[in-house]
């Protein structure tokens, strides 16, 4: 029995070590470390595991409070009595391949050079990320998952799991995702990467190192700002910031919102983006950003299988596809493309479009949790085991 931490609030990161993995491209990548966290308890029959899949900037720390006091990225959803109830389910979340939060990625040491891979990290795909998760699930001794749940890039992984491992997933939840990234999405990622490419090469430090003293460029921050614009909606920007200016002291210094630094932004929306960019500089690695956004860009089940019907032919899982009305990055039409292909194959698919103003990031917003919680709990509860 694998012990989680359903009762204690603090969580700790676990690591699984593997010799390596053969990537989609044929390149062998090894050794391979996977950072993960678990919450709740694995049942004696090992049939209550739920794999949670993070988005671009997420990590293994999905729930609870980390050792340094940070709440998990989906703490509102995962925990005792929550939407993904850790009193019932054994929840696993791992940092994706290519990430910078413990799983092998560009910041890891390349055994061939004894230096970090950096920009020489091999090209990876969403499929590679899933294959690494499969290794972890095997290591944990879990044959079949009660569910795989992911939003955005996590939703792409969820789709990949359901298509390629039909006998290992009882259900799959695909939130604000797409079966193929739109050219618009690729364009935004390209601009983000370009901001990073404009930095002086080698200027960047490892994420552990206090970034601003080492980094000369702010490309990653700019990339994050562009990302954040695409994750929000016009409506929520109007509601949250409007045209308000950041508050200034008598002497003219900014005293709330923003970075309290030169270039902190005059409009509130500017200082919000500035703040998001600066925070991201401290916690993320630019080469990881490049690696992961490329994997997202190349995700295209249509071209991979010929069409979506072929991609989903072997799906056995009970599927739930969720979209948000205000998500213009991964709009409802993309979720419907997934749904209609599954319908054509007479698969068990539910589709929920939620009318929420928060944009692509709706699934992470606390205000969205009450509705999402009811949906998660209800859907997961309806997943039957026929062993």
């Amino acid at each position, binding site marked *: 029995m694998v012990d989680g931490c359903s009762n204690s609030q603090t969580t700790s990161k676990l690591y699984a070590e593997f010799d390596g993995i053969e990537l989609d491209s044929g390149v062998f990548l090894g050794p391979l470390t996977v950072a993960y966290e678990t919450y709740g308890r694995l049942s004696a029959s090992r049939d209550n595991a739920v794999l949670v899949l993070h988005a671009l900037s997420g990590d293994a720390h999905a729930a609870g409070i980390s050792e340094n006091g940070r709440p998990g990225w989906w703490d509102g959803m995962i925990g005792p009595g929550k939407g993904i109830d850790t009193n019932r389910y054994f929840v696993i979340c791992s940092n994706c391949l290519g990430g910078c939060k413990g799983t092998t990625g560009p910041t890891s040491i390349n055994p061939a050079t004894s230096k970090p891979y950096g920009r020489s990290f091999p090209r990876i795909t969403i499929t590679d990320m899933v294959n690494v998760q499969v290794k972890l699930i095997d290591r944990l001794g879990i044959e079949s998952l009660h569910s795989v749940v992911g939003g955005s890039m996590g939703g792409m992984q969820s789709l990949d799991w359901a298509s390629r491992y039909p006998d290992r997933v009882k259900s799959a939840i695909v939130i604000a995702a797409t079966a193929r990234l739109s050219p618009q999405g690729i364009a935004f990622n390209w601009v983000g990467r370009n901001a990073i490419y404009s930095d002086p090469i080698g200027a960047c430090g490892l994420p552990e190192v206090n970034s601003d003293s080492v980094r000369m460029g702010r490309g990653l921050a700019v990339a994050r700002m562009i990302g954040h614009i695409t994750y929000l909606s016009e409506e929520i920007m109007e509601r949250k910031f409007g045209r308000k200016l950041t508050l200034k002291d008598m002497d003219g210094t900014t005293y709330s919102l923003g970075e309290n630094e030169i270039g902190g932004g005059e409009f509130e929306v500017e200082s919000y983006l500035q703040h998001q960019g600066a925070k991201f500089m401290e916690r993320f690695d630019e080469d990881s950003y490049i690696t992961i956004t490329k994997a997202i860009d190349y995700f295209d089940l249509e071209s991979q299988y010929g069409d979506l019907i072929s991609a989903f032919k072997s799906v056995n899982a009970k599927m739930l596809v969720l979209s948000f009305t205000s998500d213009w990055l991964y709009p409802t039409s993309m979720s419907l493309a997934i749904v209609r292909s599954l319908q*054509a194959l007479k698969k068990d698919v539910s589709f929920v479009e939620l009318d929420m103003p928060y944009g692509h990031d709706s699934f992470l917003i606390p205000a969205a949790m009450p509705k999402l919680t009811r949906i998660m709990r209800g859907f997961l509860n309806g997943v039957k085991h026929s062993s």
Partner: protein
Amino acid sequence: MSNTVVEIRTPFHEFEAGFNVIIELITPGTRVLDLGCGTGTLLSRLRDEKDVEGCGVEVDQEKVIRSIERGIRVMTLDLDQGLEGFPDLSYEYVVLSRTLQQLMNPEALVKEMLRVGSKSIITFPNFGHWKLMFEYVVSGRTPISGTHPHPWYNTPDIHRLTIEDFRSFVRQIGAKIEKEIFILNDRPRKEMFWPNRRAEWGCCLISAY
């Protein structure tokens, strides 16, 4: 002068009489698509009582969430957009309960139902009922009743049709009525004298020729 307060009566609580009629028409173990499934009441009864594999379509977000909570398979779709994506003859039954009179284009949807299902079951409030007609003629105003509970200026029931209207509509789209059941005072009847004037609800099982 005090304003007239228009009492808005809710139609038929959970429409139990109508649901009973629909459930009786459905063969056990079949696939049923329920259009405008609400909170999933009919589908959960069909699942429990008839071992039916059901799917609901509902546009109201709160009702969709309720359906998911009850373990009902559901799609957030607007019926006025048709049934794109549902393969031909993929369900034994397609049900449209208490919703026909609320559609922008009933003809388009009923044709879609006949495409997607082998049989379609449609229930609707009968505007031909003598009391409604009487009130219409005598008071000269749009009547409000248990079957038509909303005032004209704020109602989802944008069509007011009679049982005779429905019969000729089915003929017109080239389909046939296989069974008719009429509901009066919550009691279903297979035979009724002058149903167009006496039934409160019509329930028809129709199929394509």
